[in-house]
């Protein structure tokens, strides 16, 4: 095919691209993935029995704030990485702030707790499954983001996959808060973060293949 003919074909039947089409597409994909994850939590895991009481306390919201800030922060970065000029993501370091805050809370918590109970603060009752549940719940959101990326032009594929995985992990962990009754900052810092990191790692590996264009 001649290049001139190609240009004719591409510019005939041109559709308008509304402003912020990229951000809207990403947001819609994340929202759809989160719906699937929410359904999985509701049907497969169930809400935590004390949810009505928990939402009156501070720890529920601190947990939610922790995972949501990482999830939404990483999601915002994927919007940058969706553009071909993106070379590096300096904003990634801001995700250390929620981690540091959660760590601070953990230290305070330790200071107020007798040494004999420290193990429970760290491991809770669900440390063995928590990271893997978060990882599994991240998959629908990650796939949603990958579908959105079919129209994007990332140039750093591994990095983009990692940040998309982290976003999916953070958003999945936020929904998982509806199920998980653990209330220790150290537990959240360790096991929730591990689940999100696993999602980021897998996202990097899968992204290198899924994101090619």
């Amino acid at each position, binding site marked *: *095919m001649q*290049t001139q003919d*190609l*240009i*004719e074909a*591409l*510019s*005939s*039947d*041109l*559709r*308008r*691209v509304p*402003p912020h*089409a*990229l951000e809207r*597409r990403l947001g819609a994909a994340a929202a759809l993935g989160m719906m699937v994850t929410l359904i999985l939590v509701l049907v497969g895991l169930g809400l935590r029995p004390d949810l009505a009481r928990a939402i009156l306390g501070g720890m529920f919201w601190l947990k939610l704030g922790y995972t949501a800030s990482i999830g939404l922060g990483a999601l915002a970065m994927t919007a940058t990485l*969706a*553009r*071909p*000029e993106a*070379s590096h993501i300096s904003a990634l370091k801001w995700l250390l702030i929620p981690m540091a805050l959660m760590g601070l809370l953990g230290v305070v918590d330790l200071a107020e707790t007798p040494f004999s109970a420290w193990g429970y603060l760290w491991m809770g009752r669900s440390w063995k499954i928590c990271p893997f549940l978060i990882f599994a719940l991240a998959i629908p959101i990650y796939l949603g983001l990958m579908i959105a990326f079919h*129209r*994007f*032009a990332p*140039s750093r594929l591994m990095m983009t996959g990692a940040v998309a995985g982290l976003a999916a992990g953070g958003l999945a962990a936020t929904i998982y808060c509806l199920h998980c009754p653990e209330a220790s900052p150290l537990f959240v810092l360790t096991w929730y973060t591990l689940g999100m990191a696993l999602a980021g790692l897998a996202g990097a590996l899968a992204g290198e293949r899924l994101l*090619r*264009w």
Partner: protein
Amino acid sequence: MRESEDELRALMIAGLGGDARAHHALLSAAARLLRSFFMRRHRDASDVEDLVQDTLVAIHTRRATYDTARHVTAWIYAVARYKLIDHLRRRRLGTNIEGLEEVLAVEGFESATSARMDVDRMLDTLPAKQAMAIRDTRLDGMSIAEAAVQRGISESDVKISVHRGLKALAARLKGGR
């Protein structure tokens, strides 16, 4: 005909708004930019047109990734760079990948692009004939005779325009623009 960054950006934005003629003009201009981009980096001429077409399709289908606050040429070259690297990776060829480091080096590329844009901006401050003569002979590599034929002016006219234009630019640079 070489469109400036501002013209290309206006075409791109109109195209995003649904203006098919602007989009056509943008793709045509992009095709010229891409052809010389790939020629400089990839010697196999039969591949160059494939790369140009491949990149044009990407520019079209992925146009939502253009941030209207940024340089459209930088965006076009970023798409082109990805397509070239992808092409070379697919082929894993031992032929001529001379200059690949240069393509891969994002920083160097950005500064080269912006240097080019600085040149464009400076040329825009000159009278049109002088700017055109400098572009033709000093940037696009035409001979004085070719430029004269292309523009339909005499050779001495081209020479004088280049000379006066460069002198004006030099004076401006000395005076800190």
